[in-house]
């Protein structure tokens, strides 16, 4: 069956362009990209995009699904529905489940549950060390063959550098991607805010900004030492950026991500201890946010993710420092990220390089492009449509969004995975 997406504003992150045109899809893949003037091809079905934006589906690295262990917070079904509604066509899930995904059997469970219930693609990551305890490396080869796309201990950096060195060397042998969390653990432990006048005024336990630069320096040296391929999960401070730039210039195999919340919110949003704004790493001063957005525009930051972290009401209805960190983000990733486009700092193709193309390349996936042969994972959206977010309308099982009652701009109208529609926004 052939589907033609007519009259679209095609966002092509690979060419760095946006242009009117159409897209012909057959058997789950893009078979032709047609300019506006071209003859309309014969198709079984035509989707009239009405001049709205059509872009490659978002590949969100670092999504937490509560399976196994915390299905009451998020299941593959609810997470998948939220992803579809947010234009996320691939969820790259975290291994920090209960128990953690650190052996092929648990990984297989996640795959099976995902296949049964998620409307979007799911690619699980596995832990780097057993039980994420930083003592022994996982069966990296078996896990990779079983489908683990990357290895990470999440927000727990491996403190034992000798073990980390070996794990990285081993990862080179099997060409595995290691994702690290550049926050120095000694300084970051228990931190609910970023050290500075604001955190001091609120009396919150905090970690210094430089805890990131410090750990990033270690991690980059480890990559240099071992030749491993590494990705920094979240860069959030201005001070870390020159280090990252130098490492890239030096030719290290390193890429870096940013959390959309660090790109759109700052520490003052915590205001009077609003626990939905407690995330890891904590929100930063405005100067850091601006520097980070600039790094997205400059291409220094490769990937933007939601770091979707569902928490139930009980985990958040607590004093700030006791509240569980994290925010849901699958459904708000695109409208939040579009804030950078509306402010004129980042172009749409550049944004989709960070949301779709680069994460695909990083994981060796064929998607993230609007090109012949690429899978028809697509998102249709109106970048300008305004709305006020009501957290109770989220499809996610947990409603812990920092954007509740916020005015946002940009709505997903439809989402396709492998040519099949998985989401269509109700009109009105």
């Amino acid at each position, binding site marked *: 069956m052939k589907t033609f997406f007519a009259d679209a504003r095609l966002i092509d992150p690979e060419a760095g362009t946006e242009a009117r045109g159409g897209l012909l899809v057959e058997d789950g893949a893009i078979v032709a990209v047609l300019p506006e003037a071209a003859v309309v091809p014969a198709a079984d079905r035509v989707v009239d995009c009405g001049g709205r934006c059509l872009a490659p589906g978002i590949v969100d690295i670092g999504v937490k699904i509560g399976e196994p262990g915390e299905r009451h917070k998020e299941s593959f079904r609810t997470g998948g529905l939220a992803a579809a509604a947010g234009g996320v066509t691939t969820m790259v899930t975290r291994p920090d489940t209960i128990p953690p995904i650190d052996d092929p059997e648990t990984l297989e469970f996640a795959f099976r549950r995902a296949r049964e219930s998620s409307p979007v693609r799911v690619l699980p990551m596995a832990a780097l060390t057993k039980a994420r305890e930083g003592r022994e490396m996982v069966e990296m080869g078996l896990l990779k063959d079983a489908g683990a796309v990357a290895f990470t201990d999440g927000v727990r950096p491996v403190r034992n550098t000798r073990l980390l060195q070996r794990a990285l060397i081993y990862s080179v042998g099997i060409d595995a991607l290691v994702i690290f969390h550049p926050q120095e653990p000694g300084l970051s432990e228990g931190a609910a805010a970023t050290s500075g006048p604001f955190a*001091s*005024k*609120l*009396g919150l336990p905090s970690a210094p900004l430089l805890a990131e630069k410090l750990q990033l320096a270690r991690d980059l040296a480890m990559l240099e030492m071992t030749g491993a391929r590494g990705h920094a999960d979240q860069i959030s401070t201005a001070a870390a950026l020159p280090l990252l730039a130098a490492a890239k210039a030096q030719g290290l195999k390193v890429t870096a991500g940013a959390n959309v919340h660090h790109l759109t919110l700052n520490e003052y949003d915590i205001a*009077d201890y609003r626990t939905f704004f407690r995330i890891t790493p904590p929100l930063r001063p405005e100067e850091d946010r601006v520097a980070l957005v600039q790094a997205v525009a400059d291409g220094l930051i490769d990937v933007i993710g939601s770091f979707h972290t569902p928490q139930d009401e009980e985990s958040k*209805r*607590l004093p700030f420092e*006791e509240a569980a960190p994290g925010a849901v983000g699958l459904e708000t990733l695109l409208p939040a990220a579009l804030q950078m486009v509306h402010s004129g700092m980042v172009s749409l193709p550049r944004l989709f390089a960070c949301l779709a193309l680069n994460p695909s390349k990083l994981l060796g996936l064929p998607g993230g492009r609007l090109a012949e042969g690429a899978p028809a994972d697509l998102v249709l959206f109106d970048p300008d449509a305004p709305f006020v977010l009501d957290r109770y309308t989220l499809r996610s099982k947990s409603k812990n969004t920092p954007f509740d009652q916020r005015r946002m701009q940009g709505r997903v109208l439809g989402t396709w995975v492998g040519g099949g529609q998985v989401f269509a926004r109700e009109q009105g």
Partner: protein
Amino acid sequence: MRHLLGIEGLSQGQITDILDLAEQYVSRNRQPDKHVGGLAGRTMINMFFENSTRTQASFEIAGKRLGADVLNMSMATSSVKKGETLIDTALTLNAMHPDLLVVRHQNSGAVALLAEKVNCAVINAGDGRHEHPTQALLDALTIRRRKGRLHRLTVAICGDIAHSRVARSNILLLGKMENRVRLVGPRTLMPTGVDKFGVEVFEDMREGLEGADVVMMLRLQKERMDGGFIPSEREYFHRWGLDAEKLGYAKDEAIVMHPGPMNRGVEIDGEIADDINRSVIQEQVEMGVAVRMAVLDLLSRPTHNGRESLLA
């Protein structure tokens, strides 16, 4: 004013109003019949998630002298230990229709969180490292009575500023009333970004006390003395303990304050603490009851629009 959650939300005028009213209670408290019936029939609950004999007793006496029915809940041994959340505890108590809740909690912001969930007046009796407004008010009243004014004074706050809610509330209050505030202590016990607080910071205690009108000492918690923040108790006393020699740098008529309980020989020399010419530590305790009576009184006054008191 619906709640008293911190000094931050108070204006200069409100602070003066509270102190003026407290002043009246000071004289009242010195008479044999201390009973004032203003809060008869009202229920006041003390919820102390962190143990405190002194502050709790001060609030209890204040409430009782105003005629309120006072209930003390020792939260450290109650259902909170059984896993009940702060909010559920608040909702449970709220259903019993208290008029005043006095809350101390170990986490910053916890009292404000609780205040959102109940429909009675909430008084912050100390939340984490954030604020302890009644302490700052009683300190202000003590200073005003001793110095005859509460402006254009040089006040040195000494010791563990980083972990102190007393320091934060005092910095705010003394700043609002247009005083010079100096912070004195080891750098490990100074909050980050303290230079943005509108204060002067001194490492050297003698420099910090030079010409001060008021020397306010803070308690150094035992758990900070283990080498994590300062090398040892005796080194701390050597550099930042208040003794006669260091006090000599302050003005001759400078007063010495301490929120209690004191560690004699750690942050303050016993002789200074007991010197009736310099130390106003006992007077602070007395002012504490009067200030708390004033706060309870003001928060309980109904006006034409619901709970808004004369202060708001």
